[in-house]
């Protein structure tokens, strides 16, 4: 194993209530590009966070260049030359390229407090030249394209003499030609002996750059393969190959007779292209795809939160214009946001106010005076019906668990008696018991004749809950599947492969 200059052996990591990594091993050679594959939530990010010192493993060891190492902080990992480039860049948009590369490690005269601008500038130029980049050191980062910003991140990694570079979904936001230049730089790094860990969902693209691939699933190590010899279909099977658990509560099959929503040629420049689909009464329609495929963007467009450039939205057979959120709500569309803390709840305020948020017009008289008693009764009724666990209605929402917070927002739309509900990642970050309750709630809603569009990155959940599934990729609907022909493989195929 001498050619493995980095080994992670039998890593286990537990979070409260979750086994995030179970006995995972991973190794990296000098000068190779090693792809790390797996569904969302497979544990890739957790593994890389352990490698870069963000988390500490509960069990297992990391051996780097022959020595056993322990990282107490990202800085420790960085000192040894292990750098990670996150999906969201850690750059300061208002500072220049040069300042960004050496932020916190500025060149100083006599190592004291006066900046040595010429020396730093020279060093930056050298790095940029090494990467063959035509970026001026004095350019502000906000003036750069996304791809260029990524290059700055890479330059930053090189400036600390990175021996291991982890790239998390580096091509997610890049155009074709930008990807080319990223690959060029990656190959350059390879030649210089850097080990690159490359996290991506784009299997075909990986064939151009990856030497080996390690597949993870549900926090477990599955296999490591040579990319040259492997079949992509095998990779997909390895990524998803698991039987559905029976945790999804059954509901009677729905009968498609009444279309409540029909979307025709919906378009939003650069974001959504030619979206066509329909939603039936009592249906749970899944919206699958990888992160960044445009699912949330589609939800926001339907909800009037983002403008659309063209296309038609028909509600109950009537052409409807949805110009803003208020119109959408008026027409009976509700949106459970992806990020409940940032976009869903007024965290510091009470459970009652959060449930009633947006419902006050119906619970007040014509002078705008709140009917407090009715508010309280309705909130209490919903708290009971949805089994929201809270000591009392005046409890601040932030003191509740994630699952209960999610139920508060559902209660808000239930209170409004909304007909079409868009659930964006409704079970993200909540425990299994609470997930089940959310599923049951969804079943109860559709049984009452409501219709649900469910966005989820968890394939089993989509398969277990939805009557039909739309798979999105780069802003368009790549495929539609029904219960008969939907499988994790077929979804992943639509989500990752070009037509």
């Amino acid at each position, binding site marked *: 194993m001498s050619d493995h200059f980095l080994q992670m052996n039998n890593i286990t990591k537990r979070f*409260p*209530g979750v086994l995030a990594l179970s006995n995972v091993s991973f190794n990296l050679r000098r000068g190779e590009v090693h792809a790390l594959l797996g569904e969302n939530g497979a544990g890739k990010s957790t593994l890389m966070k352990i490698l870069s010192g963000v988390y500490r493993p509960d069990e297992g060891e990391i051996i780097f260049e022959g020595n056993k190492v322990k990282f107490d902080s990202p800085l420790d990992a960085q000192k040894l030359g292990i750098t990670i480039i996150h999906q969201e860049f850690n750059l300061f948009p208002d500072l220049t390229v040069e300042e960004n590369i050496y932020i916190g490690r500025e060149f100083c005269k006599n190592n004291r407090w006066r900046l040595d601008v010429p020396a730093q500038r020279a060093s930056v130029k050298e790095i940029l030249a090494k990467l063959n980049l035509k970026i001026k050191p004095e350019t502000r980062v906000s003036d750069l394209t996304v791809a260029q910003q990524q290059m700055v991140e890479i330059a930053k990694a090189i400036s600390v003499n990175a021996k291991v570079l982890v790239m998390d979904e580096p091509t997610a936001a890049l155009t074709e030609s930008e990807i080319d230049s990223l690959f060029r730089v990656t190959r350059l790094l390879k030649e210089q002996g850097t080990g690159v860990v490359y996290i991506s969902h784009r299997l075909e693209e990986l064939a151009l750059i990856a030497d080996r691939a390690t597949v993870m699933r549900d926090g477990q190590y599955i296999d490591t393969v040579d990319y040259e010899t492997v079949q992509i279909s095998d990779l997909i099977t390895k990524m998803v190959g698991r039987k559905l658990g029976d945790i999804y509560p059954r509901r009677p099959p729905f009968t498609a007779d009444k279309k409540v929503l029909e979307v025709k040629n919906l378009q939003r420049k650069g974001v959504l292209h030619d979206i066509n689909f329909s939603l039936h009464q009592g249906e749970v329609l899944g919206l699958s795809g990888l992160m960044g495929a445009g699912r949330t963007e589609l939800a926001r467009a339907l*909800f009037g*939160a983002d403008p659309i450039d063209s296309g038609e939205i028909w509600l109950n057979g009537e052409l409807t214009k949805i110009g803003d*959120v*208020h119109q959408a*709500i008026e027409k009976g569309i509700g*949106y459970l*946001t992806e990020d409940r803390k*940032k*976009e*869903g*709840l*007024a*965290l*510091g*305020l009470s459970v009652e*106010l959060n449930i*009633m*948020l*947006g419902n*006050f*017009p119906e619970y*007040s008289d014509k*002078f*705008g*005076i*709140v009917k*407090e008693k009715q508010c309280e009764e309705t909130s209490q009724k919903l708290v009971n019906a949805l089994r929201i*666990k*809270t*000591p009392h209605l005046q*409890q*601040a929402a*932030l*003191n*509740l*668990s*994630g*699952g*209960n917070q999610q139920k508060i927002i559902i209660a*808000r739309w239930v209170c409004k008696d909304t007909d079409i509900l868009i659930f964006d990642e409704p079970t993200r970050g909540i*425990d299994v*018991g*609470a997930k089940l309750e959310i599923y049951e709630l969804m079943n109860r809603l559709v049984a009452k004749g409501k219709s649900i569009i469910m966005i989820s990155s968890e394939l089993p959940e989509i398969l277990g809950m939805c009557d039909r599934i739309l798979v999105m990729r780069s802003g368009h609907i790549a495929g539609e599947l029904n219960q008969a022909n939907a499988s994790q493989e077929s979804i992943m195929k639509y989500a990752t492969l070009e037509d």
Partner: protein
Amino acid sequence: MTDSLTPTNQPVKTRRLNKALLMRLAPLFSLVLLVIFFSFSSPFFFNTENIMTIALQTSVIGIMAIGVTYVIITSGIDLSLGSVVAFSGVVVGLCASYSMPLIVCVVAGMLAGGLCGCINGFLVTRATIPPFIATLGLMMSVRGINMVMTDGRAIYFSDYPMFKMLAQGRLFDVLPYPVFYLLIIALVAAWILKKTVIGRYVYAVGSNEVAAHLSGIKVQRVKIFVYAFCGLLTGIAGVILASRLNSGQPTVGVGYELEAIAAVVIGGTSLMGGVGTIGGTIIGAFIMSVLKNGLNLMGVSQFWQMVAMGIVVIAAVYLDTLRKKMR
């Protein structure tokens, strides 16, 4: 399960709750302590006449502070109050100089404040200028307009003997009218905040604007309302001030906005938004004027009084951060 209530942690919870309650009552305790302290330090402090004087001195800033409490709960700020308070006095004076009926002068003065508030609201919502900048701009411009309209001179109400009675008279010969106005306005403002839809929206917008928008609240309207409301109250304060001075003074009110904001902050309203009460603001305003009055009676110089005020504001905000840490 991570659900918040398991029997084991319940006692901890109640203890924390009590501590939180204690913190919330801190401004009231401070006020009581101050009153007790000054009562012992000066023989002239604790009597009806002096208490009424303190209340009278609190009324103008207090009314403005109530208005800006609304703004601050939505996590906004209004720096234009000091200029607007003078503006409304000047408008009353101008109307008077055209010999309009007294009632018209008074209403015009109040609406002048409301108009300034509306402008703030539109700048913040439609033009999406940060509240700090928008209201700073208005603070400067309105001060200039005051000067332009009056040539920098005060306008006296010699033809309106009744006008000064608005502020200088006393209800039942005891309670100065401005204190009465402050009371009424405080009650109404607290009622709006607690009992009406718009009141709930004010908290919701301040707590999480995005969530409020996505749940169908017309956030922009709420914001325009709070700035307009704040302006209107400032207009009322301006009329009272003009009546007390018996003149429209273009230069009056410099720095009042900061005193009002200080009162709000001392009263436990968070500049981050979503948290705050009118009661707290009133207590905050009284803490400041009790401090001023008491130190005066003790013969402490004006300059040291300013130092004391600053310390009180900082201490109050420090309490606020402590309170947040406890959550």
